[in-house]
């Protein structure tokens, strides 16, 4: 049986760990609230944007703009959004696993190039000697319009220069603090939404011309899509961290109560032993 002193030391160290996980949980909860708010506030814009596009696309053919034209997907890009930091449960692992599944799921002669966001993803693929065309890491908060703009520009440029026949994005969709779902979306070509026009398409007036409108609207849609994914990913990360740290705190409490029991038992045993010794010594002296 471990000595009293050793058990006390362990309890102390676990208490320290618990304080850290508790603090991290608190911080994650505060950040989650903010990230969730931001994600919710951005939703109407993204929804309206999608509605606008599907109204529009039922009226234009895919040939109307290069960003609408689907090509054979011999070579595609995959943007993977991971976190810069760990200690957030299975968050990064889930995303990375989904990414690998996507790559493996494609025929071997087809090429997939990775664009990695977040240090965890970058490290993982570097360890496995898998090359990435672009890496973004240590960017602090990932949900910035600046990063969304950069990624959108990159994706569009690679698509238009034929370096990629399509660009996908893989991110964690925020359902709740307990559940984040790895989600795959196609960024470009911009999906023409519902091909079938339900009922009579309404007569529309365009200003300026439809081509001009498309060439400003389509890149915007890509950017909005990325920005939304970034917001969702940020909320997911904080949610996952909060849950992970919450269960770590609970586990620490459990271990501590177990150890306290052991400690009390050891102390009791020591007392009993001492009593026995005293009694038997007294007995012997008679």
């Amino acid at each position, binding site marked *: 049986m471990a000595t009293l002193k050793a058990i006390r030391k362990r309890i102390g160290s676990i208490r320290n760990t618990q304080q850290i996980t508790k603090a991290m949980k608190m911080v994650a909860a505060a950040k989650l609230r903010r990230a969730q708010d931001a994600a919710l506030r951005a939703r109407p*814009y993204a929804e*309206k944007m999608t509605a606008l596009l599907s109204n529009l696309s039922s009226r234009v053919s895919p040939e109307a703009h290069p960003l609408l034209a689907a090509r054979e997907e011999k070579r595609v890009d995959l943007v993977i959004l991971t976190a810069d930091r760990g200690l957030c449960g299975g968050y990064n692992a889930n995303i990375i696993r989904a990414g690998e599944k996507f790559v493996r799921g494609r025929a071997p002669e087809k090429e997939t190039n990775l664009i990695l966001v977040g240090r965890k993803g970058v490290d993982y693929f570097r360890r496995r000697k898998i090359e990435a065309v672009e890496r973004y890491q240590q960017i602090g908060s990932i949900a910035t319009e600046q990063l969304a703009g950069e990624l959108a520009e990159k994706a569009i440029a690679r698509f238009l220069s034929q370096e990629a026949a399509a660009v996908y994005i893989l991110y964690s969709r925020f359902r709740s603090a307990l559940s984040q779902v790895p989600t795959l979306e196609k960024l470009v070509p911009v999906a023409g939404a519902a091909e079938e026009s339900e009922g009579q398409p*309404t007569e*529309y*007036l365009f200003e300026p011309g439809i081509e001009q*409108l498309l060439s400003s609207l389509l890149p915007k849609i890509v950017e909005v899509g990325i920005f939304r994914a970034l917001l969702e990913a940020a909320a997911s990360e904080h949610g996952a961290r909060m849950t992970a740290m919450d269960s770590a705190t609970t586990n620490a409490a459990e271990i501590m109560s177990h150890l306290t029991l052991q400690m009390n038992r050891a102390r009791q045993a020591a007392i009993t032993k001492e009593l026995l010794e005293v009694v038997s010594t007294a007995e012997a002296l008679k």
Partner: protein
Amino acid sequence: MADKITLRLVTPSRLLLDEEVDEVTAPGALGEFGVLPHHISFLTQLEPGEMSYKQGAGRSHLAIGGGYAEVLDDVMTILADAAEYADEIDVERARRARERAEKKLDELSREDKEFLAVEAALRRALVRLQVASREARM
């Protein structure tokens, strides 16, 4: 709701407005335009500029930073890159932005890549100042 338009104004960071109004004016790509009830379905790009809407007797002014507007069945949806009410505008900041942009424009030649970006920044600052000077909201 025969003679009202539902005006929805959203920006990437928030839903600013979802209300019934009587009349809207906005800066379109081909010049300012007004929208009254029973307007034809219409889709346009917006320039940075001043938009306003009338609700009862009052008229509200906003500065918007470009975007898109759609009118469909008496619902007008404005997707703006940025939008601020007249009384939300930070006049000091806009004034500083204007000075910065003006100074930069003096240094740059028309061929510079940055020229357009700085010019756009100047335009945004001017719009903000102009809208802020109205102040009258409601």
